[in-house]
């Protein structure tokens, strides 16, 4: 019975968990519910991946309605790839969250925190699972509303302003997206992505579609923090509670990338330049700008969370670059970097969250020499940092290697040089953190710290270990990313 309902269980399980966590109103019970729900979700996600690899596209009709009338869930290789990533990160975040949340959030709000965390996961998984353009908007807003609340739960008063700014920008982004969807709906009379693709074939060159694509791309670009539209991100990541930052940094922008890829490739076809707008050229330009400018800004920050947040904006540049190259190798590289970046940024934010847990601050000045008292935590941070640079032996190297191959394949040799050059900026900001935490004399704060508890170290090291593992034996993620890229470029699922 369960096997045939897998696509919808992906959303029901975390949603049910959220409801039960809210009903429990007790911090520990809510955490237990969240842990079990996210473990079950992960199991469902892996089962889906396995079935997609065996059978191809899985379609599920909510309420038994035909796709013309109702909502259809479509899981293909791309959705399964994203769903596995999001649910695995969510599960690790739940392990990490208990101690971290107890330290950062007042007791009566803990149950609500887990409710919001699960709602956010449900929304993100929903975006990946649904085959309905409007339903994707609803899930986008479910996850976003939960995200705003999560950020506002940060203990610093600036968290409120960060949440407010993200709310404004995020709502504008989602509204632009839904305007684009509306224009498509007016042109095609359907919201089902599969049917839209069929009906768009006869509408090539329509001006409404060009406008729709522009609205959708700009709307999603706001959500994924593409370079000039990223202003909300550093504050949001820096002031949110540590556990929330881990989840957001590893999953939220990644799912937005998925949505962008879905529209650029599946809906608007492999040739992503629609009408008069040279989207791929614009996307390459913005991606390169993202690789350099926020990374350069990261070098001058003093708060480690902000450094990592700005680095996220830069790393998203590599991912969108992969989309813009629009060839098999480049797209594989982009999707692979999406996967690897989720792991390394998850590990990095978990590590800095553990530092905040012990030291109470993420300011670089206060953290000098903390590597001597918290060696395991700082080692995980260092591994994640090396992966951000793209050092051979870490997963970051593999994905950048594919991106460079993709750039060469597209005949853009200068782009390959820029990818390498931009990594030097990562050397600078990662090097600065490494120098301060390992090689300086321990400051007063650092001397008083102890190693982080095992509950925080375990998920952190699973991610850090995966970063190294997938740097040496990259077969599994590369296989997933390559089959997802094949599906996006119009091959068999």
């Amino acid at each position: 019975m369960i096997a045939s309902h897998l696509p919808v269980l992906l959303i029901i399980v975390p949603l049910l968990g959220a409801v039960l966590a809210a009903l429990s109103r007790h911090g520990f019970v809510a955490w237990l519910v969240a842990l079990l729900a996210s473990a079950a979700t992960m199991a469902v996600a892996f089962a889906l991946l396995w079935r997609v690899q065996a059978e191809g596209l899985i379609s599920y009709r909510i309420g038994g309605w035909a796709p013309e009338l109702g909502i259809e869930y479509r899981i293909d290789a791309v959705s399964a790839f994203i769903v596995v990533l999001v649910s695995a990160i969510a599960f690790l975040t739940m392990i990490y969250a208990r101690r971290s949340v107890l330290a950062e959030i007042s007791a009566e709000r803990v149950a609500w925190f887990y409710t919001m965390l699960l709602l956010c996961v449900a929304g993100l998984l929903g975006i990946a699972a649904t085959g309905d353009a409007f339903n994707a908007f609803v899930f986008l807003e479910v996850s976003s509303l939960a995200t705003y609340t999560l950020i506002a739960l940060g203990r610093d008063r600036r968290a409120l302003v960060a949440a407010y700014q993200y709310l404004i920008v995020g709502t504008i982004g989602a509204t632009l997206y839904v305007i684009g969807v509306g224009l498509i709906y007016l042109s095609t009379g359907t919201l089902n992505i599969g049917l839209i693709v069929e009906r768009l074939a006869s509408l090539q060159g329509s001006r409404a579609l060009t406008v729709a694509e522009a609205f959708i791309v700009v709307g999603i670009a706001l959500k994924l923090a593409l370079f000039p539209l990223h202003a909300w991100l550093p504050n949001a990541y820096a002031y949110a509670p540590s556990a929330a930052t881990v989840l957001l940094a590893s999953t939220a922008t990644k799912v937005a990338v998925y949505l962008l890829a879905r529209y650029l490739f599946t809906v608007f076809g492999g040739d992503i330049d629609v009408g008069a707008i040279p989207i791929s050229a614009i996307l390459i330009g913005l991606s390169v700008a993202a690789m350099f400018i926020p990374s350069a800004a990261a070098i001058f920050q003093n708060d480690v969370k902000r450094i990592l947040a700005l680095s996220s904006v830069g790393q998203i540049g590599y991912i969108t670059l992969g989309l813009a190259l629009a060839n098999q190798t480049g797209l594989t590289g982009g999707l692979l970097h999406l996967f690897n970046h989720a792991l390394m940024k998850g590990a990095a934010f978990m590590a800095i969250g553990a530092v905040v847990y012990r030291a109470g601050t993420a300011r670089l000045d206060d953290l000098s020499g903390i590597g001597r008292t918290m060696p395991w935590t700082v080692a995980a941070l260092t591994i994640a940092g090396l992966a951000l640079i793209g050092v051979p032996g870490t997963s970051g190297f593999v994905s950048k290697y594919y991106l460079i191959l993709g750039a060469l394949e597209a005949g853009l040799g200068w782009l390959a040089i820029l990818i390498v050059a931009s990594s030097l900026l990562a050397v600078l900001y990662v090097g600065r953190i490494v120098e301060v935490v390992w090689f300086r004399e321990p400051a007063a704060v650092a001397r008083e710290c102890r190693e982080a508890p095992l509950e925080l170290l375990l998920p952190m090291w699973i991610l850090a270990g995966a970063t190294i593992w997938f740097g040496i034996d990259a077969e599994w993620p590369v296989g997933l990313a390559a089959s997802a890229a094949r599906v996006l470029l119009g091959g068999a699922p």
Partner: protein
Amino acid sequence: MRFDIVLRVATKFILAPLLLFALYVQFHGDYGPGGGFQAGVIAAAAVILYGLIVGLAPVQRLVPMGLLEVMIPGGVLIYMAVGIASFFLGDNFLDYDHLAHDAVHGQEWGVFLVEIGVFVTVSSTMVAIFYAFAGRGRS
């Protein structure tokens, strides 16, 4: 405002019909415009009106915050329970065809039950929003 005789008396006359109207909209949703969402807002409006007239403390004795915190997820739970019940009847999520002896009655029952969940969540959410803003800066 709470000592204004006109408002107090007028509210007394309005409250009961308002709640009744909410129920009408709820149950007539099967045949005409209406449903749990609209009914929930109307019912919440009755509670909020009462709160505006008598003040926050008396209305919170009537509809305590603790009750709302159970009702908000509770309504979603009802909705999901109906959807999950379809699993056990061999249908897809939220497919009500087998909830009764034939598909039409099944759909009617399904929508009816789901709308109750919607009513519970929407009405309690609206009242909770009112409490959150009205209670700010006093406690």
